[in-house]
């Protein structure tokens, strides 16, 4: 990087900030000096317009357009072929199956381990430190996490010393080293492990806060009734945090359906590890199969739709209570 490059970049950021500040300043000026007639209306427009315009142009319109593209050939004719492809080609079917495996395993394990850990360390000495350790991967990019785990799964052939932790353990126990990321179906599971590693901290933090919300009296009462730890866990703690459990499960499910970086960086979808989110990118931006890519994006949307509806319902109920 030359000094000129650096200057150009700094200049860009400064110009970006100045232009943005000018836009906001103008907007506020118009809001305050809006004509007396219909003033409320103009003020409302001023406050809402930037967000609404961006969201309509960048999310609503594209989502509709993608839905249409999914039913078109590259020439623009109407067709179902993209969906036929997605549900009949062995490679595409495998992608769908993998996605289902991901969305079944990741939320379950991340939530279970996060919950167990949250219960174990609850009010123990050094709780904050314990929490920080498990929570740390949240701040690490999926790409960074992929490099970390690729190193764990690294394979050396023959009698050479293993430098990947997993194969070193296998060899230490007298086994043969395995090419983990190229061996189907274990490779999909090992990619899932990375996602679980990232998401468990999130589950743990939310559930830990929920556990602290349970009244101490309740736990004490259960204790006086002579319950053991497991009974208190299933009869007092779990019902007490049911709401948060649902939050965590749905959040991680959505994140898992959309995850792209892990597969992209670790195997690029080879060796039967692809999932819908990655295949969508490969089809639309690598193979220029816009229709197929769009069909996959639409399938992804249909998969998250039940969660969307559930969430909207809960939100509506909340607002009615207010």
């Amino acid at each position, binding site marked *: 990087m030359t000094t000129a490059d650096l200057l150009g970049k700094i200049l860009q950021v400064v110009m970006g900030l100045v232009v943005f500040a000018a836009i906001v300043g103008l907007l*506020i000026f118009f809001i305050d000096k809006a004509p007396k007639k219909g003033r409320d209306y103009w003020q409302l427009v001023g406050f809402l317009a930037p967000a609404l315009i961006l969201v309509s142009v960048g999310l609503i319109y594209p989502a509709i357009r993608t839905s249409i593209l999914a039913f078109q050939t590259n020439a623009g004719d109407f067709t179902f072929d993209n969906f036929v492809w997605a549900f009949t080609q062995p490679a595409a079917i495998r992608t769908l199956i993998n996605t289902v495996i991901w969305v079944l395993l990741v939320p379950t394990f991340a939530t279970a381990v996060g919950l167990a850990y949250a219960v174990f360390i609850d009010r123990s000495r050094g709780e904050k430190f314990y929490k920080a350790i498990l929570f740390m991967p949240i701040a690490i990019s999926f790409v960074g996490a992929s490099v970390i785990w690729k190193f764990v799964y690294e394979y050396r052939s023959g009698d050479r010393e293993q430098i990947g932790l997993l194969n070193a353990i296998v060899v230490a126990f007298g086994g043969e080293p395995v090419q983990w990321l190229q061996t189907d179906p274990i490779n999909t599971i090992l990619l899932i492990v990375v996602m679980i590693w990232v998401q468990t901290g999130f589950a743990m933090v939310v559930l830990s806060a929920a556990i*602290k919300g349970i009244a101490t009296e309740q736990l004490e009462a259960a204790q006086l009734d002579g319950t053991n730890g497991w009974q208190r866990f299933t009869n007092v703690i779990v019902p007490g945090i049911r709401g948060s459990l649902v939050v965590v499960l749905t959040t991680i499910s959505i994140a898992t359906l959309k995850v792209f970086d892990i597969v992209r960086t670790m195997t690029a979808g080879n060796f039967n590890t692809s999932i819908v989110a990655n295949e969508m990118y490969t089809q639309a931006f690598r193979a220029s199969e816009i229709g197929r890519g769009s069909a996959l994006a639409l399938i992804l949307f249909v998969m998250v739709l039940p969660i969307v509806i559930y969430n909207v319902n*809960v939100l509506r109920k909340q607002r009615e209570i207010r």
Partner: protein
Amino acid sequence: MSIAPPDLPVGKNRGALDATADAEASGYVEPKTIRVKKRLTSRTATIASIIIALLWTIPTFGLFISSFRPAELIRTTGWWTIFTNPGFTLENYQDVLLSTSSSSPQLGSYIVNSIAIALLATIIPLVFASMAAYAFAWMRFRGVGVLFVVIFALQIIPLQMALVPLLQIFSTVLRPMQAWLHDVVPIIPEQNYLPLWVAHSIFGLPLAIFLLHNFISEIPADVIEAARVDGATHGQIFFRIVLPLSVPAIASFAIFQFIWVWNDLLVALIFSGGTQDVAPLTQRLAELTGTRGQDWQLLTAAAFISIIIPLIVFFSLQRYFVRGLLAGSTKG
């Protein structure tokens, strides 16, 4: 992507939650809690939590150790043999950061790109979202409920749904602007940050509006009405009252958005063009993993550089970050 919660509200635990957080903050735990706690902890639980903690730290720790080992040693021995095969070097970092030879990763410009992208991609959605959140919370108009639910639902449209058409829009609208900018100010490359700023701002908006609305709508109505009676305009109320009061919420979302943008790969791959002028660190790292997958001395050092800034942000502002997470998942 990983950390954007859909914010399913659970109002029930809220009071208790805040109370615990306060108690924690002041370092005060009621005696009764300690009594119950003693009976709940067992040796098995302690051992289990230590094992989990180790499992979660070892992979990162191994990467960290390796990034300081000479290339030859990384290639032939495991990092856990560090004591029998000692060796320490800063060469890997020197190589990935400072070397100008065309075969080295030259991370310097990518770091600058990541910072430049994350900076504006955090500020823009925050400002627009807080304005929209104020309107939703304090300006009365018909259809507010429906519009707000629409925004809420937008969070869950997968990014993938928006990419193809958005790229088409960008190539017809933003590309001429970028070319024009390059003509007027030649020092700014034709491939510039504009598409990434816009894309990240758009994708961050729904969550930002939702979280900030939750906070802003809970400012006491008296405060806002008193200002109205005194003749303050909406602009004045927004800048003088609402923004200063919302600093905690804004801070927690800012950390979210920053880390999210910093860690993003998908948006970068599609909108950056992949050159040194624009592409962020994650994109370069992904590229290295693909083409230089065997050069562990480069990969480990590069990976560690890419995670160090979000980790610093995360650990120094952890309290806000956690609060933001909980606001998203447990507040109505």
